């Protein structure tokens, strides 16, 4: 295997270095090199004419299900799905079995990820067993390789514990990711509104999220310690984050392709692949999220990739598990925002690579010379029909099955190693 590549004639989009130009990109010994120094004939040439060459995409919110629920996904299958979707790095949430709340689980995850076709960045639990009672050992977890902490899947009910988490995590440079949900208001299986009334399903009000988003903002503002809000789904949350940023509060936020693409109408027919938490919201919420993506309120697009098997999804709607897979559809759905003029190409790469890398403190998200060669080559025009037989993830729980999508990763490279290649 050659260790040198020359990606030729692609449109290089690298927001960190303010680059957007057609040029060649060289890779030597797993790192980005000066194209002039790579000797002709020695490097494998990749013709990227008509494609975008961007820093490897990073999904800062996925569930890889290992250890404990390997029948849904495992680290290897999840990383294959990531590579196919154009991702070179993923941050995996700690709600595994057991919960990733101590250094041995973090170490196990990294051991299982060695050799996988994507970089795996473990997010450890905020509280022991994610029970919301006492802090996990953040120092140990950082040493073992965790990049952030979160009790994702569950909110931290206790405001004092959340305050302490923000303060203590900052001591170790760990990002704190909040699953923002006021649990006493969040009994239900879809968004509360006209559709839940029509379908007779118990609704989760938007304020269940917004109230907790405001608590996190207030804690971050008071302590001066950063907080990151996961999977924002409501207009009110978006507005709260926008105002907080204007005041200089250290808050960052992500939203997902399903919140900016779908609404509660997708639940019609009791479609369990449209069931997730937070739930799909109204068209007004979706419009506000689009504004937040355009105006910088959101820092990142993440998928909340949540594999579930038919055991959890081919059941009554109320009994179905929350969550959908997203790694293989995130890029095409996000590229639609560029085609529709919601965001430009530079902003897309900030949302999907540069910003998530910065929030998690990763050496990634740029095409600077000398950094590990994590690269995604995107063909923005490539059309494909997303069907179940093409899904690489172990689970097939996507509301986008059957959709005709446009734009995808045609080549993914992690540390100079090709992890996905449609050029062959």
């Amino acid at each position, binding site marked *: 295997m050659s260790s040198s590549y020359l990606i030729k004639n692609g449109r290089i989009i690298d927001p960190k270095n303010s680059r957007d130009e057609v040029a060649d990109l060289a890779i030597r010994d797993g790192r980005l090199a000066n194209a002039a120094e790579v000797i002709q004939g020695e490097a494998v040439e990749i013709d990227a004419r008509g494609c975008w060459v961007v820093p490897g995409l990073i999904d800062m919110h996925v569930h890889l299900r290992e250890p404990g629920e390997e029948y849904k996904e495992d680290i290897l299958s999840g990383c294959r799905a990531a590579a196919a979707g154009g991702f070179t790095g993923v941050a995996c949430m700690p709600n595994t079995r057991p919960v990733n709340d101590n250094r041995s689980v973090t170490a196990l995850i990294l051991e299982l990820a060695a050799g996988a076709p994507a970089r795996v960045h473990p997010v450890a639990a905020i509280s022991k067993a994610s029970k919301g009672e006492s802090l996990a050992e953040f120092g140990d977890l950082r040493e073992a390789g965790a990049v952030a902490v979160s009790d994702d899947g569950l909110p931290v009910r206790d405001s004092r514990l959340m305050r302490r988490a923000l303060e203590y995590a900052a001591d170790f440079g760990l990002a704190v990711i909040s699953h923002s949900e006021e649990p006493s208001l969040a009994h239900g299986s879809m968004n509360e509104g006209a559709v839940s009334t*029509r*379908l*007779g399903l118990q*609704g989760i009000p938007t304020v269940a999220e917004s109230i907790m988003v405001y608590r996190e903002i207030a804690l971050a503002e008071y302590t001066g310690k950063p907080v990151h809000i996961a999977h924002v789904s409501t207009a009110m949350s978006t507005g709260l984050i926008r105002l907080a940023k204007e005041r200089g509060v250290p808050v960052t936020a992500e939203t997902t392709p399903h919140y900016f693409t779908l609404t509660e109408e997708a639940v019609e027919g*009791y479609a369990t692949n449209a069931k997730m938490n937070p739930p799909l919201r109204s068209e007004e919420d979706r419009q506000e999220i689009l504004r937040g993506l355009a105006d910088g309120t959101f820092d990142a697009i993440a998928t909340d990739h949540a594999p579930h098997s038919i055991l959890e999804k081919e059941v*009554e*709607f*109320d*009994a179905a598990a929350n969550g959908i897979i997203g790694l293989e559809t995130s890029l095409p759905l996000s590229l639609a925002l560029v085609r529709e003029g919601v965001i430009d190409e530079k902003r897309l790469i900030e949302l999907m690579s540069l910003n998530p890398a910065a929030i998690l403190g990763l050496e990634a998200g740029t095409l600077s010379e000398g950094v590990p060669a994590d690269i995604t080559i995107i063909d923005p025009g490539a059309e494909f029909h997303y069907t179940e037989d093409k899904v690489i993830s172990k689970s097939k729980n996507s509301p986008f099955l059957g959709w005709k999508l446009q734009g995808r990763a045609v080549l993914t490279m992690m540390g100079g190693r090709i992890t996905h290649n449609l050029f062959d």
Partner: protein
Amino acid sequence: MTTGYFFPHRHILGIDQLSVDDIRHILSTAESFKEISSRPIKKVPTLRGNTIINLFFEPSTRTRLSFEVAAKRMSADTFSISASTSSTTKGETLIDTARNISAMNPDTIIIRHSFSGAPHMLTRYVDASIINAGDGTHEHPSQGLLDMMTVREHKGRLDGLKIAIIGDILHSRVAHSDILGFTKMGSEVFVYGPSTLMPRALDRLGARVCTSLSEAVADADVVMTLRIQKERQNDPLLPSFREYARQFGVTRDVVALARDDALVMHPGPINRGIELMPDVADSGRSVILDQVTNGVAVRMALLYLVMGNAPVTG
């Protein structure tokens, strides 16, 4: 009836799916079957050889009995499975239970389930016709139809009527089916109850949400009260039944606000003295037992009509 009309449904999942013509056709069919129940020999051979299974995952006395009586009067063979005796207690999924039943080739499965949408899901896994006998807080179409039949019988029409529905709209699949049905047929539906028991965006279903009992009931042609469900009291929806009865209960004075010939209805079972006072329930305006009688006729009609759309086998 329009010439060339053909009842198009294999499954009865909700009033939502039915057109005005469908509802008219079901009600006329039910009216023609009603007479069978007053014959000395209350049986016709129409569904002879038909196998009908009652699959009830929630306790029910009247609805289940009503479907069974309806099926037997049409000479169908009926079998009833209730949640306590079914395999679901052994961890069998609803889909597996339904597939096993399906393997015995029933013609129609009547299902009641505490989850909204459970009957819709079954249509994807079994060949039989599915009739929804109440799913969660979604719909109870046969109840909606028997309510319409009862009103039409007494008023001679459904269009231009004012229907007042009072009580727990949030948890009531009956209210849901009634709002959809009466509105489709040209009535105006006014609803009232404590705000804690009103679902959001109810107006989008076609109902008019009132701010007082008198607004809802004034000059109404029908006053329908709904059961307050005692089993839902884990959510702080109401301070007490005593206060509910005082503030929201339908008394003689409330009914006096309605038209002189207004009908009093209730889908049953009644919490006497809470949502409906006993003297009103037993008054000459009450058509509560007519609802029960018409329930059999409506269910006979539904069983007959879905059978007409059974897939051709063999």
